[in-house]
């Protein structure tokens, strides 16, 4: 077996074991600077007094925490970020190979692993290229210059006469020294510098070119890619019997018959935590089913009425944060006032593969293979839950099914860890069942937004008030009480008190501040601490709802101003890069020449800069509404994106396309259902998502090239604009505005009337 987690496609891969053992000249001397896990921002924290280093270099300032060169000249890059299907491995390899001047296929990448990589917090918030890509790019550039400097010393030539290419330093006279010749154990064990000699974008050979993703060949040929695919010696299969509802108490369980079932090794009970361990996977499933039947729970109704969800949430106590306030600059008489309220239900991550983890306790140390988004915070939570020192817990990221935020990944890791702690020696594989993933994943929070604005007599916005009501958008680990196992075990850890994620990135208020120029504006985040339903981070956090609301509202204002939606946006937009994506999308779509909306055919537009800090994205789309049924058929979509310096153009297109299609599903179809006691959507019957028959005919993504500009994360840039473009196109098609998500066929039909 090759090293777990290594790319099956990168043939000359350095195995993890080789890395761990320090084979060859590879030096394992770097120190991981313990940094408190960063929040949902995913990003680095600057420690006081230290020089401001680029990207995540702040977290781990030694170059050899990021780049190492083996005695044979092969290079290894290290990142604390994880591959989630977003293609980050390929992008980071491109960045590193480009600056280090090594061939792409001579470079290996090690991803999130508490024994090997820097603590880069969570792989979240579209930060990976910004944080880790920037760190690796600068580390690689500095390493290259160090290697050139070493060559200059040995050749006795000025460094500026030498250049690096293909893992070799070349002198003007043709003399060469390979990196293998130059490297020594301490050469790269130096502190990073704030400034690097970065390559000119014109000389890029690897960056800004579409590179095939390194993980795809393995994924389409049955390679061992996912944590689900791992088979370790002596591995046992576990299944958890979850309570039927939040807060249910285990009353009685009769384990006798299950213990005698074929293959059953152990039943683990710890408070309300109940699991069964068996030799074979299907034995574990059958035992889990029997155990569930043999268990009685005490449940109580504690969930809000789904039909009154918005009213219930609005009635809960709030903590108000005014996140933006601009007093009136010029007094203009407001001519027209417009106001609107928008709502979003709870949304599920709904990964196609339910969560899975493997844990093994050996000699007092626990190893956990997990598809968590944050190996360090997960380690902290697991260690606290089991009363182990963090150094005794080793978390290794192995890919899972796409997660789109905080799904069951960490909880499955917690489950595996708790079971493994009671069945020492054996690797314990916990695979969540489909219904467990749906019933127990923390959902993307339900939200309500209210917008009020006035137009002056010239049809420009004079005045803007906006409020967003939301729970927190992160209940991620760190604390043991963030894990279900931690909450359910006898020594129950309370869930940590919820906190709003701070601006400028924000949580529920992410993208609540419009990028538009407004003479007077106030934006308030009404943070709701009480969480009737388990919630956490879902891709783009509050941005989906805030951009849906703001961009729907911009269309409502444009209508009141008798203005074209794109022209109206441009009138209020000064940022030249924002204007560029808006005009690019409109031009490529043929916005000006579009058919007038009506009779069930409409066009819509949406724009945002994700977090007002990351990628810019504008989307235009055309759709048809079937009048008799309300069914939406999206015809074509054009997106324009500015991600700063592009690393992998096709990778960006893949992310933007994916975000758009996922947003179509969220926006048109999805909502979590529940009664007063239980979550009711537990499978694809009850939580339907986009199917192929409803996929658009065409999606085009246009990249606005910004050579030399900082990387801007794009993984969450398109969801908000896509949702608004859909709502606006539906309004254009039927002449009615829908403000309640999801925009289902039934709701559209009700708006259309007979």
């Amino acid at each position, binding site marked *: 077996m090759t090293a777990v987690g290594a790319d099956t496609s990168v043939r000359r891969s350095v195995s993890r074991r080789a890395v761990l053992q320090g084979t060859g000249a590879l030096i394992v001397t770097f120190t991981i600077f313990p940094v408190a896990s960063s929040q949902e921002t995913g990003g680095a924290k600057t420690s006081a007094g230290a020089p401001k280093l680029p990207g995540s270099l702040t977290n781990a300032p030694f170059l050899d925490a990021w780049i190492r060169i083996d005695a044979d000249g092969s290079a290894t890059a290290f990142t604390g970020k994880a591959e989630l299907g977003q293609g980050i491995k390929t992008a980071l390899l491109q960045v590193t190979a480009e600056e280090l001047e090594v061939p792409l296929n001579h470079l290996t990448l090690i991803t999130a692993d508490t024994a090997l990589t820097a603590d880069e917090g969570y792989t979240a918030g579209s930060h990976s290229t910004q944080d880790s890509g920037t760190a690796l790019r600068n580390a690689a550039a500095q390493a290259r210059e160090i290697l050139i400097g070493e060559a200059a010393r040995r050749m006795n030539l000025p460094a500026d006469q030498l250049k690096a290419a293909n893992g070799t330093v070349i002198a003007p006279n043709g003399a060469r020294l390979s990196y293998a010749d130059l490297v020594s154990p301490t050469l790269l064990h130096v502190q990073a510098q704030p400034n690097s000699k970065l390559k000119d974008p014109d000389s890029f050979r690897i960056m800004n070119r579409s590179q095939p993703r390194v993980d795809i060949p393995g994924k389409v*040929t049955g390679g061992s890619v996912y944590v689900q695919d791992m088979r370790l010696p002596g591995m046992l299969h576990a299944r958890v019997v979850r309570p039927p509802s939040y807060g249910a108490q285990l009353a009685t369980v009769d384990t006798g018959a299950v213990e005698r079932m074929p293959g059953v090794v152990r039943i683990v009970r710890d408070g309300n935590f109940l699991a069964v361990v068996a030799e074979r996977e299907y034995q574990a499933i059958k035992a889990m089913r029997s155990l569930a039947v043999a268990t009685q729970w005490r449940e109580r109704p504690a969930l809000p009425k789904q039909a009154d969800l918005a009213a219930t949430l609005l009635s809960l106590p709030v903590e108000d944060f005014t996140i933006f306030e601009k007093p009136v600059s010029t007094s203009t008489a407001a001519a027209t006032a417009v106001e609107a309220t928008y709502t979003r239900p709870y949304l599920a991550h709904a990964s196609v593969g339910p969560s899975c983890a493997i844990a093994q306790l050996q000699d007092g140390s626990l190893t956990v293979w997990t598809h968590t988004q944050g190996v360090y915070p997960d380690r902290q939570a697991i260690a606290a839950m089991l009363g182990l020192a963090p150094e005794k817990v080793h978390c290794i990221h192995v890919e899972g099914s796409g997660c789109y935020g905080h799904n069951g990944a960490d909880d499955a890791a917690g489950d595996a860890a708790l079971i493994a702690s009671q069945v020492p020696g054996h690797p314990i594989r916990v695979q969540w069942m489909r219904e467990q993933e749906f019933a127990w994943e923390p959902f993307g929070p339900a939200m309500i937004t209210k917008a009020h604005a006035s137009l002056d007599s010239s049809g420009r916005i004079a005045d803007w008030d906006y409020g967003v009501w939301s729970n927190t958008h992160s209940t991620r680990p760190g604390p043991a009480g963030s894990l279900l196992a931690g909450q359910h075990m006898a020594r129950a850890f309370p869930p940590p008190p919820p906190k709003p994620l701070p601006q400028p990135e924000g949580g529920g208020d992410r993208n609540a501040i419009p990028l538009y120029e407004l003479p007077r504006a106030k934006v308030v985040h009404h943070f709701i601490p009480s969480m009737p339903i388990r919630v956490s981070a879902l891709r783009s956090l509050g941005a989906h709802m805030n951009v849906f609301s703001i961009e729907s509202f911009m269309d409502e204002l444009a209508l009141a101003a008798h203005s074209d939606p794109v022209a109206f946006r441009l009138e209020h937009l000064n940022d030249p890069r924002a204007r560029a994506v808006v005009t690019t999308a409109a031009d490529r779509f043929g916005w000006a020449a579009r058919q007038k909306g009506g009779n069930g055919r409409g066009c819509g537009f949406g724009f945002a800069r994700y977090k007002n800090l990351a990628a810019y994205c504008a989307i235009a789309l055309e759709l048809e509404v079937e009048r008799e049924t309300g069914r939406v058929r999206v015809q074509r979509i054009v997106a324009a994106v500015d991600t700063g310096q592009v690393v992998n153009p096709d990778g960006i297109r893949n992310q933007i396309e994916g975000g758009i299609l996922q947003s179509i599903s969220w926006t048109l179809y999805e909502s979590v259902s529940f009664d007063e006691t239980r979550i009711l959507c537990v499978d694809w019957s009850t939580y339907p998502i986009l199917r192929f028959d409803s996929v658009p005919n065409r999606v085009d993504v246009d990249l606005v090239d910004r050579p030399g500009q900082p990387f801007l994360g794009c993984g969450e840039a398109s969801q908000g604009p896509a949702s608004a473009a859909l709502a606006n196109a539906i309004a254009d098609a039927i002449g009615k505005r829908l403000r309640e998500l999801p925009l289902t066929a039934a709701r559209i039909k009700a708006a259309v009337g007979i």
Partner: protein
Amino acid sequence: MELKVNGRIHSVAAAPDTPLLYVLREDLQLNAAKYGCGLGQCGACTVMVDGEAVLSCVVPILLLQGKEIMTVEGLGSIDKPGPMQRAFIEEQAAQCGYCIPGMMMRAQALLQKNPQTSDAEIRRQLEQNLCRCGTHMRILRAVRRAAQLMQTPETAVDTGRST
């Protein structure tokens, strides 16, 4: 009991009521077919049985004696990918990739029966398979490309059976 998978006969010790998926993954150590729901609702576990797309998570192996089972591993290898695999690589038709093997097997069954199939028919067939990353546009392109590759003599030669 005996199962014929990717052209090879395997003797497996699993109980006859075990769904095929667990036997493929645990006994035969084949990774491609994925557990997605165990309910026959998502298509992640799709394999081919006698040329038809079948959901391996709900079919007990006792139904499969004497039948030809094929998984993605039977379509080719990482060193010698078959046309369907090549098409997915060339179109970069994956994000997390978890649903992709199921998509490939349903598409393979369709194209083996009807190499000239229409876009509408590809969508209709794939309706049973879910993708959460939103890779649909690329999956559709990859299936169309696979149809072309299968009809091109130099790429259509071998659909695997390499084991």
